[in-house]
Structures are given as structure tokens and as C-alpha cells.
């Protein structure tokens, strides 16, 4: 039995689906961020396995993943900072309760 590209894509796909589900359903902003990480991660996996299977002589996929991780780290840090700030003001982290800026 070979470990084909396809076999790696399946878990990644499911991970992505979970991310989507979580992103849409969760109300807690932190939980939304977690879902976001899931999606990012699944994309990273895709990059890597495509790179490895289809273009083994190059490193584009790996570098992309590397950058994605860097960006994800920065983004998460910032987002969490914002969330905590919002929490300080509104005492809430639920996305449907923070409506002060609406309309």
C-alpha cells in the first residue's frame, strides 16, 4: 500500500471543514480564532504535501507554509490583543453581543 497524495489531502480537507464549521458556529471570538488556525493549518498541510509529491525538487510549498505560519502567529497575536482590549471595554467576547459599532 502506498501513501498517496490523496491520503494526505483527506485529513486536511476534514480539518478545513471543521475549521469552517467552527468559524461559522462559534460565538466566542477566541474559539473563532481557533477555528481559523485549523483552516490555516490544513492549508499548510496541503502546501507541504503538494510540494513533496508533485515538485520534490523545489521548496516553494515549504516556504509558503513557513511564511503562513509566521503570518498566522502575528495575526493571532494581534487578534488576541484586540479581543482582550474589546473585552476590557465591553466585558464580553461573544461576537453577537458586541454591536456597538454596528450601523
Amino acid at each position, binding site marked *: *500500500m*502506498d*501513501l498517496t*497524495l*490523496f*491520503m*494526505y*489531502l*483527506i*485529513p*486536511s*480537507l*476534514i*480539518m*478545513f*471543514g*471543521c*475549521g*469552517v*464549521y*467552527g*468559524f*461559522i*458556529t462559534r*460565538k*466566542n471570538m*477566541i*474559539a473563532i*480564532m*481557533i*477555528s481559523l*488556525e*485549523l483552516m490555516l*493549518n490544513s492549508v*499548510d498541510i496541503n502546501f*507541504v*504535501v503538494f510540494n*513533496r*509529491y508533485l515538485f*520534490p525538487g*523545489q*521548496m516553494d510549498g*515549504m*516556504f509558503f*507554509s*513557513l*511564511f503562513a*505560519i*509566521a503570518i*498566522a*502567529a*502575528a495575526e*493571532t*497575536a*494581534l487578534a*488576541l*490583543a484586540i479581543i*482582550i482590549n474589546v*473585552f476590557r471595554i465591553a466585558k464580553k*467576547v461573544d461576537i453577537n453581543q458586541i454591536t456597538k459599532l454596528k450601523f
Partner: protein
Amino acid sequence: MESVGNIILYFIVAIAIIVFSVLTVTTRKILRSATYLLFVLFATAIIYFQMDYQFLGAVQIAVYAGGILVLFVFAIMLTQQPGKSAEALASHRRWLGLTAALAGVALCGYGLFSYANFGGRLITGGVDINMEKIGQFLLSTDKFGYLLPFEAISVLLLACIIGGVVIARRR
């Protein structure tokens, strides 16, 4: 033919990813959710190692599992009373999420099944990826050089730092 160890490892990793992903988004305790995420990230790191991208795997563990997740935990600790579960989801929300997720998975899965004739073999050791090479690629301007994105990322990180400072500054 793959080595059996590799195959077993693959199944363990795949099942771990699937199970913990689902748990991450279904658990109602946010701290648990973060913990499951950690497992998913570890599993991903294992895939990277399996692919022979040791550096990437290391980064994954160090940055993601080590850095980001700690941030999450801190944030959770700061904003949540410990042990409190989130309220149950409104059903229409769940249906929405399920629809979107399943539709996405179904479509992509169908796509994969229909087109995935690019089986190919896992080729390990095709390119020797060591730290030196990575460093040179990152800072080179040759054909496979990544200086420009690298610089862009650094600018982005700078912007993030500034943003973080601005956000955290007391008014």
C-alpha cells in the same frame, strides 16, 4: 511499497487529525478546544516530519504549539471564567455551519475523488533540506530566492508589533 511503520504512523496521524479537529470545534469548553487544537498541531508537525521537512516541523511545534497556543490559553484565561461552558448553539447556526462545512467537504471531496489520478510516490530525500540551504534560500535573490517575501513578512511583523503596541497602550 511504503514501510509499514510509515503507514501505521500515517493512520495514527490521520485519525488524530480528524478526531481532534472535530473535537476542537464541537467541545463547549473553550480551554479544551485549545487543547485539542494543540493535538492537531502536533499531528500536523508529524506529517511535516514524515515529509522530511524537519525544519518546518520544528517551526510548527515551536511557533504554533509553543507560541500561539500559549497566547490562546492566556487569552482564554483572561476572558473566561474557568470551567464555564459555552451556551448551546442555536440550532440554525449549527445547521448553517454544518451546511457550509459539509458542502465544502463534499464538493472538494468529490473533486478529489474525480481528479485524484495523480497518485505518485512519496519521494523522500530527493532534495537535501538542511538549515543552511533554507537560510540561503530565504536571503537569496536567485531563481528560488525568497528575499522579497521575507522582507515583506518582516515589514508585516513590524506592523504587527506597532499595532500591538498601539492596542495595548493605555489611554
